[in-house]
């Protein structure tokens, strides 16, 4: 039994570390439920979970000013919504396309939005949202506010032309934005080395006078340190920054991707499993006497139960009324109706 660490050894106050753990565990159970919903036919379309990548949501978003800083990501967005405070049942209901959903079922898994928490989605066009993110940062500077914009994008998205155009304008005008490239080594079925001329994606910030670096995305402790440092710096300097966070999706690209061996080997997966973020973090908590295995099992059981209740409650939410198909196309008028 290792000797308990003194508070000062820890990367964050003990109670925070425990909360982060709960959040990670909860997110993982939530995502399992999301996939389950898809298999049950309660969710359709494209559905992408965050399993294996949790620290990028839990770690980074615990170091921003929640409800003040702007956050935007692509379609792999469940974790960001939950982490920013979206009601889990409303989030799951949206994934199920129900009237109790964040957008009453109009958006779905790929398009979660929760403006009350300054979560700007939730986007389906690879790379497209990076320009919107630039606009959020532009708005902050226009209003002379010190909000930071966090824009997540995938390694595949980092090839998109509009991302470079946006980086250029952010560098040109010194906009306070952090682009977090979630480098999980694959763009759907295409390996990093097969889609990026240079797999060191952080270099893409170089031609635009951004700060740029590659960081680890597996080890929660490192993530917490890096994210705090980078977010604080961005808020201070109002300079844009490209962060390549090395991570890994344990599961398929989307709920429909049932044959990962088309593009990566079992051996590779086993190798990466050893660096599973939750496993690493729990080891840290245990080694430093923050939590015992028993306590963690307890937490795991509690969070699983929560996730199950959310799943059941969301399932109860009714489908939207048919008339709603016409609502909110415009703020002030209805579209012409009928076929």
């Amino acid at each position, binding site marked *: 039994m290792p000797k308990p660490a003194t508070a000062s050894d820890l990367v964050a106050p003990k109670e925070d570390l425990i909360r982060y753990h709960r959040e990670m565990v909860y997110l993982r159970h939530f995502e399992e439920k999301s996939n389950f919903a898809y298999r049950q036919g309660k969710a359709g379309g494209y559905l992408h979970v965050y399993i294996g990548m949790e620290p990028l949501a839990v770690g980074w978003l615990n170091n921003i000013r929640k409800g003040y800083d*702007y956050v935007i990501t692509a379609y792999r967005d469940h974790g960001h919504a939950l982490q920013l405070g979206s009601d889990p049942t409303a989030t799951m209901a949206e994934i199920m396309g129900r009237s109790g959903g*964040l*957008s*009453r079922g*109009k*958006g779905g898994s790929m*398009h979660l*939005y*929760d*403006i009350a928490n300054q979560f*700007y*989605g*939730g*986007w389906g*066009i690879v790379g*497209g*949202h*990076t*320009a*919107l*993110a*630039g*606009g*959020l*940062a*532009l*708005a902050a*500077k*226009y*209003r002379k506010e010190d909000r930071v914009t966090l824009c997540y994008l995938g390694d595949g998205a980092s090839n998109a*032309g*509009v991302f470079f*155009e*946006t980086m*250029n*304008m952010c560098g*040109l*005008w*010194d906009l306070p934005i952090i682009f977090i490239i979630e480098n999980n080594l694959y763009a759907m079925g295409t390996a990093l080395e097969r889609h990026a001329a240079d797999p060191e994606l952080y270099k893409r910030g170089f031609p635009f006078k951004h700060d740029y670096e590659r960081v680890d995305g597996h080890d929660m402790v490192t993530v917490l340190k890096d994210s705090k440092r980078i977010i604080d710096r961005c808020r201070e300097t109002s300079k844009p920054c490209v962060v390549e966070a090395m991570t890994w999706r344990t599961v398929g690209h989307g709920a429909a991707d049932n044959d990962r061996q088309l593009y990566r080997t079992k051996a590779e997966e086993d190798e990466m499993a050893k660096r599973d973020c939750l496993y690493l973090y729990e080891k840290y908590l245990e080694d430093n006497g923050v939590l015992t295995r028993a306590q963690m099992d307890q937490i795991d059981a509690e969070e699983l139960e929560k996730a199950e209740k959310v799943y059941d409650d969301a399932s109860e939410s009714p489908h939207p009324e048919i008339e709603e198909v016409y*609502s*909110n*196309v*415009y*703020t*002030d*008028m209805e*579209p*012409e109706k009928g076929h």
Partner: protein
Amino acid sequence: MSSTTMTYREAIRLALMEEMDRDENVFIMGEDIGKYKGTFRVTDGLFEKYCQNTSDWLHEPPHPEIQDGVGRRVIDTPITEPGIVGMATGAAMTGLRPVVEMMTMSFAILALDQIINHAAKIHYMTDGQISVPLVIRGPGGAANQLSAQHSHSIEGWFAHVPGLKVVAPATPDCAKGMLKAAIRDDNPVIFTENPGLYAMKGEVTDDVDYTIPFGKARIARVGSDISLICYSRMVHVCLAAADKLAEEGINAEVVDVRSLLPLDTETIYNSVAKTHRAVVVYEDWKSGGFGAEIAARIGQDCFDDLDAPVGRVGGLNVPTPYSRVLELQCIPNEHDVIAEVKKIG
């Protein structure tokens, strides 16, 4: 109400200034719109008016030799339309009201994903959580030998997209009143200006709160024998045709649709109910242009009123050639309108 004579270009500029004065959230961005005044000189004077002091700068001078900072409310951008529109949309999501100038609407084609698949869908996908008070304006249509890549009329594509509003004013007064309405609108609005109109003079209502609501067509000429349905510069082509037709005893009514989405079918239908004949006129490529939608609607909804098939006059179905003699072939003129009027009989 009092009015002032000014050009279409000046009317747009005045609308921009009035709205920027009225609302701190309104700003303009685009290529060479600052000191360079915009390629069609629409934004002449705005940088000087709104970006005098360092406090008016979004960013300090990027380079010692360059005295001026980057304007905060008049933002010169790189030549990156997708990024420009996307960033404007992102800013609009937070409640700012950007007015983006496209140097020509042909370049908006690069930004269609941002316009159609982002801006136009945000209010719906968020079920009303976010609105996008964005205006995209610029010259649309052929000018003078700009060649195939620079001469598009793409208002029809936009008018096909739920979530967008699309207007195409034909006079200075409409330009001012509708641009102000566009800027005050909480939805993304495409505002297209035909380059041939900029120098046109007209009376413009003075009231700073004079706006023209969308979805109301305008009877540009009252007539009884046939309805010429049109918008933007084609309104003037139709008026010229109407004058010539009048000499032959044909009294044409000219309906300036001016708002494509929403579309004022009521006014159009009333005109057709009166004249029993209609020809739809537009500069865009004839096949698949928005005039087809208008013609299809008249054909179906005014079936019993029609004494003749609904005629159409559109641009030739070819890329716009450089040669002036060939280019002139492509753009509809009053003779083409008259020919179609006679053809439908």
